[in-house]
């Protein structure tokens, strides 16, 4: 029995893997998770896993626990092994898809990671740096400006309105300008989704594969998948894209 924890910028995700099968998945808003269950012990971050109620005392006692994510460098939990995010995500994608050769595209709250996997091993990867436009947080902001929920935003890919700002904050005012021009919301949603594709294509082309495995919360954006397919990519979204890192941690345990 193994537990994986992915401390993301927007959500903390948990996975319990038993007999090589995902037995349970949970998630929690990052800020409220740290406020309710976290505390600093000197310079180390620690939290009360039992208090979450996600796992029984016997599960916590018996399971190997592996964690990754933003908090990992300051995390100090007795008996918890820390692994890098990229390795956790690759392990999760290998486990969830059964594929051995692919390009992993993981789009989370802040980070976009693109990894080349060959023969089941990580060969190289790139990550967004200095800027988190085209992340999950960007999608949330744009949905708020358009006054739609993420499900609505992710259901439009036809005739995207062109959006060119390279900054996620300037992008908001550019979007407002396009609203004033009278474009329908559906086309504006498609435009927002198209900006994600434009941002990730150079990274994907650097590591060409027959198959893209798309993970992270942004993988729930159906329009993104459609737009990537229109660009000629063959995209696979595993069953639990948002929990991929946590599952990867668990299988590494």
């Amino acid at each position, binding site marked *: 029995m193994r537990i994986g924890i992915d401390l993301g910028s927007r959500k903390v995700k948990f996975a319990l893997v038993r007999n090589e099968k995902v037995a349970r998945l949970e998630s929690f808003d990052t800020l409220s998770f740290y406020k309710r269950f976290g505390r600093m012990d000197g310079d180390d971050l620690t939290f009360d896993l039992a208090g979450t109620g996600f796992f029984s005392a016997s599960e916590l006692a018996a399971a190997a626990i592996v964690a990754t994510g933003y908090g990992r460098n300051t995390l100090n939990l007795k008996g918890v092994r820390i692994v*890098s995010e*990229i390795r956790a995500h690759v392990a999760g994608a290998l486990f969830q898809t059964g594929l051995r050769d692919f390009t992993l595209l993981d789009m989370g709250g802040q980070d976009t990671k693109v990894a080349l996997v060959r023969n089941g091993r990580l060969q190289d990867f790139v990550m967004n740096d200095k800027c988190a436009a085209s992340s999950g947080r960007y999608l949330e902001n744009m949905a708020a400006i358009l006054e739609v929920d993420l499900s609505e935003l992710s259901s439009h890919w036809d005739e995207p309105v062109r959006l060119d700002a390279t900054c996620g904050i300037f992008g908001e005012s550019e979007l407002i300008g396009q609203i004033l021009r009278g474009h329908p919301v559906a086309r504006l949603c498609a435009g927002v989704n198209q900006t994600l594709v434009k941002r990730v294509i150079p990274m994907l082309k650097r590591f060409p594969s027959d198959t893209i495995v798309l993970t992270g919360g942004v993988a729930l954006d159906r329009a993104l998948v459609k737009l990537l397919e229109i660009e000629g990519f063959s995209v696979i979204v595993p069953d639990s894209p948002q929990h991929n890192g946590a599952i990867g941690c668990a299988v590494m345990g």
Partner: protein
Amino acid sequence: MNRTGFTTTIPLEILLAAERIPVDLNNLFITGGRSLELIEAAEAQGFPRNICGWIKGIYGAVIEGGILELVAVTEGDCSNTRALMEVLSLHGITTIPFAYPHDRNPRALREEIERMMAHFAVGWDEVNRASDSLESVRRKIAEIDRLTWDDGLVSGAENHYFQVASSDMNGSTKNFEAEVDGFLAEIAGRTPYRDSIRLAYVGVPPIIDDLYPFLESHGARVVFNETQRQFSMPYGIPDLVERYRAYTYPYDIFYRLADIKQELKKRQVNGVIHYVQSFCFRQIEDMVVRQQLSLPILTLEGDKPGPLDARTKIRIESFLELLGEQQ
């Protein structure tokens, strides 16, 4: 003696003939202990954030270091140097342009060298004497390089240091040669490295300060520092013009690649790290490097001075894992 700065390797022989103290401004910037502050100060002065850190660092090093005269390489290196030269001239600093002809034309290079000689009021006799005086230390640095890849006695960082420092001989050929002699004596009794992975470092010297020790802590050692080796003029060519035609760095990427390919083979390299500086035109050349070299390549990008960041470390670890498996 007056100190004369330069923005990248130029015929050092001319400065020595003119009895100037040579100062490689890159070395002055990066070893001064205040490299990050110099960049921030240059940005506060108006240098854009999306311009190479070396340009901003050189600007800061010139102003803070009190350099009053410099040779700026305007062709064969980054074109930002031209604007840097213009900005520095506003501070009353004398700037002497030096252009490597893109086609390596010997006549054009000779004219450029003679123009620089005329500025410093020296003739061929003095320059050739200075040239002879450098030959002994250059031969010893070439030996340090051989001891790196052939005998395994020198670390990647040491190889980097001695070759990169040879661009200006740390300001004093005599003192630097004594340092080189001391080092050669010290390593004679060393046990050879037993690293399993042999790496090449291709590209401009890193702005990152802990790359080599990080690699060595993972069982990999750099046995070829491409541009640093070029700075040390290891060719043994007596003619000055031909020497600076053999120098690959300021010419096109294919000329550089011919040298790189030959050395990769000779030194039995397992993998290549191609370092590129953020915002540098050489980032574009990465496409050519990747296409032309058959060994596994990891491209690293650096922007500001400091230690390796966490994600670059993970990328290096993955790359070394891959190389380890291939052996």
